[in-house]
């Protein structure tokens, strides 16, 4: 198929960017969206132009590196990561807009590449269990009810891609942060740091320049891993509980 792509090109963080139009031909419906961009980039290189920069790595939907706003939707029309979006979801002759994540806390590095290191700093503020190597008790010393383990897993599936922030009109990181808070706070292993975790992570989230939550719910719709919106409510309760307990 033949497509018209309008792609955000931006030289570096300090330059102004603009949408640039490209025509691509010979696209197979079995290609992934990133393979379609590979195809474009091969042509650009041979034509003496600079290829479009974008983050990607595993191309299996699990590393969380890739992510772009496609026709206004984070990761495009399917509920998956950009690397797992296939061209069979588009039609010959389509015009496709491709933009980077847009959020104050995710500055553009180049073209479709953004800086998501703010996420790492949120995790560093409490998204862990403090258990130095070697200090662990026998794994079966503390049975964990299957429901709690499954609930933890469901929230631990977050891949840190940032689609939730990109989709949120406020650029909020509440879904990302709450996914980790719920994962660790529902497990007995996470209980000793239950309060400090939520307080630390929420305060880091605010410091990194993410916006507030206004219950729009776009984040959970855009999430390729289906992190439930209820995580945010749980985190709010954890936060309130911790704030009261800390007093």
């Amino acid at each position: 198929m033949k497509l018209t792509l309008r792609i955000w090109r931006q030289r570096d963080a300090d330059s102004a960017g603009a949408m640039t139009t490209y025509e691509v031909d010979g696209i197979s419906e079995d290609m992934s969206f990133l393979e379609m961009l590979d195809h474009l980039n091969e042509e650009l290189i041979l034509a003496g132009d600079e290829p479009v920069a974008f983050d990607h790595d595993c191309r299996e939907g699990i590393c969380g590196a890739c992510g772009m706003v496609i026709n206004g939707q984070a990761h495009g029309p399917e509920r998956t990561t950009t690397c797992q979006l296939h061209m069979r979801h588009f039609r010959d002759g389509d015009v496709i807009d491709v933009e980077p994540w847009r959020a104050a806390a995710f500055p553009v590095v180049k073209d479709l590449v953004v800086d998501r290191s703010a996420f790492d700093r949120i995790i560093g503020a409490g998204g862990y269990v403090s258990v130095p190597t070697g200090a662990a008790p026998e794994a079966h010393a503390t049975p964990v009810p299957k429901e709690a383990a499954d609930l933890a897993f469901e929230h631990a599936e977050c891949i840190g891609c940032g689609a939730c922030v990109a989709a949120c009109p406020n650029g909020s990181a509440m879904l990302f942060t709450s996914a980790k808070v719920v994962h660790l706070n529902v497990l007995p292993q996470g209980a000793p740091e239950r309060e400090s975790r939520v307080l630390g992570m929420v305060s880091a989230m605010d410091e990194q320049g993410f916006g507030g939550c206004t219950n729009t719910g776009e984040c959970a719709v855009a999430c390729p891993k289906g992190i439930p919106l209820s995580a945010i409510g749980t985190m709010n309760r954890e936060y309130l509980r911790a704030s009261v307990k800390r007093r």
Partner: protein
Amino acid sequence: MTEYTRYRTGDPVADTKAPDGPIAERWDRRRFEAKLVNPANRRKHTVIVVGTGLAGGSAGATLAEQGYRVVQFCYQDSPRRAHSIAAQGGINAAKNYRNDGDSIQRLFYDTVKGGDFRARESNVHRLAQVSVEIIDQCVAQGVPFAREYGGLLDTRSFGGVQVSRTFYARGQTGQQLLLGAYQALSRQIAAGTVEMHPRTEMLDLIVVDGRARGIVARDLVTGAVGTYFADAVVLASGGYGNVFHLSTNAKNSNATAVWRAHRRGAYFANPCFTQIHPTCIPRSGDHQSKLTLMSESLRNDGRIWVPKAKGDTRAPADIPEDERDYYLERIYPSFGNLVPRDIASRAAKNVCDEGRGVGPGGQGVYLDFADAIRRMGRAAVEAKYGNLFEMYERITAEDPYEVPMRIYPAIHYTMGGLWVDYDLQTTIPGLFAIGEANFSDHGANRLGASALMQGLADGYFVLPSTINDYLARHPHDEVPAGHPAVAEAVAEVTGRLERLLAVDGDRTPDSFHRELGELLWDECGMARSDAGLRKALGRIPELRAEFWRRVKVPGSGEELNQSLEKANRIVDYLELAELMCLDALHRTESCGGHFREESQTPDGEAARRDEEFAYAAAWEFTGTGTAPVLHKEDLRFEYVHPTQRSYA
């Protein structure tokens, strides 16, 4: 016969760190003999860790917890993205929670046997011992492993073994283990004990007075080439499967760190030992940029088959039961669909070569869940494999609940890597290699769910014990930034980048990578022959010359330039590929993932030749395109006696 194949055999290489004595006591003995660094002195030592996967992430976190100053690097935008994250199936540990006869001794035995008797016994036994501690550690970190209703951990069985010792977190075990290590690392980064450099790629090793003292690395955003110094350097940069272009590795996984270390003097061991995973999604066309694995845990319940007749193009549902060949169950009745990876892969190749393959180009076999759905019900299958089925459907637009999956083997893992001793130290003092970057534990073939085990064993438990000995014995001294070795390494890195930008030819970097990959897959893939390997060895130098004449890298070196990153990695693949082919050529036996067509039993199974080849081949670099020197490490088997593997 090219100049390159006239290699010389040098002195044997010996593992001087492995203690003698009963195998079960060796790890304790080594830890006792190793010198320690006083806790108060540890903060005076800097350790560089390259990579943040299971091995690097766990090592960085643990070394920092111990009090060392860690400076860590990854090319990705965050340490959480390392490719360990994509491991699906699980992690082995000899917990024997099932009471099914498992033990450390059995895990040790299975791993040595699974590796086709080309791994070092001492290392493998240590791995089996440490395996139980890994599960404890990960559970304590909050890794949400699958659990039974009683709240205890669930396990499943994996290819090549008859016990249920694989712990898992649905089909995302690697992700959950990696996030555990990443979170431990993040705690140290926040505490200021780990200085993390994301989007920074190691491009050379700095060796001063014979010791590894730092690295040259490029900031991938600004393009700035910088130097970093330390008392020891740990490479946890993963395997080299991407040399094949199409593999299950992440697109940017690369061999540059290990290859640059090899060029600086670290021996490279068993480069031809590469693993081909039997259950990947077949390629759909020339645009294919990578291959996706379907966890081999699927082989627990899925049945593999092809039509009995050649060229049968009927839909799978239209092929009656008695016209199907469940070839693994037929040839290997006791292991059936759970034979080790190399055997399953080769069997798939054989039936496809016979013209019985299915799907486009006949490059596929069926993995059928119809019986499992009948037996367990769709809901149970969904609970166990739901995310894998979803992934398959997304890629192929076929519903595996209704139509059998099509699978085909693909490059997945590399058992070869930098040669290391028992302490995981390479032949360059002060340079350590852990995880897939080293060659140590899997011999000629790795068992399923053992990569995660080895990465975490090395990073959490082995390296943090053994590196003390080196640091204690080598008092810290400052590396003068103006040392000639430093300037030379920097000049080499920048010179190479400038050369790449200056060629301005007419072929893209990817076109070379693709061509090299196809050549390797054909001649150094699932089956290797003397003639094919010689052909590849003739072609690789030509391709290398053509690369330097015709490659086109747009942009400059002073910016984020993904084409430059790619081209720079291909330079190393074009050298590494040659060593892989030479290693495969010299090893005229078949073993594990290395199948030489000239060395097979009458019924077509791999024939090992222990009298000649019971050694690890450690190669010494002598120059691009010039014959390397072979150093052999003889393997002694005192506990597991080599037998021809049989899974029948």
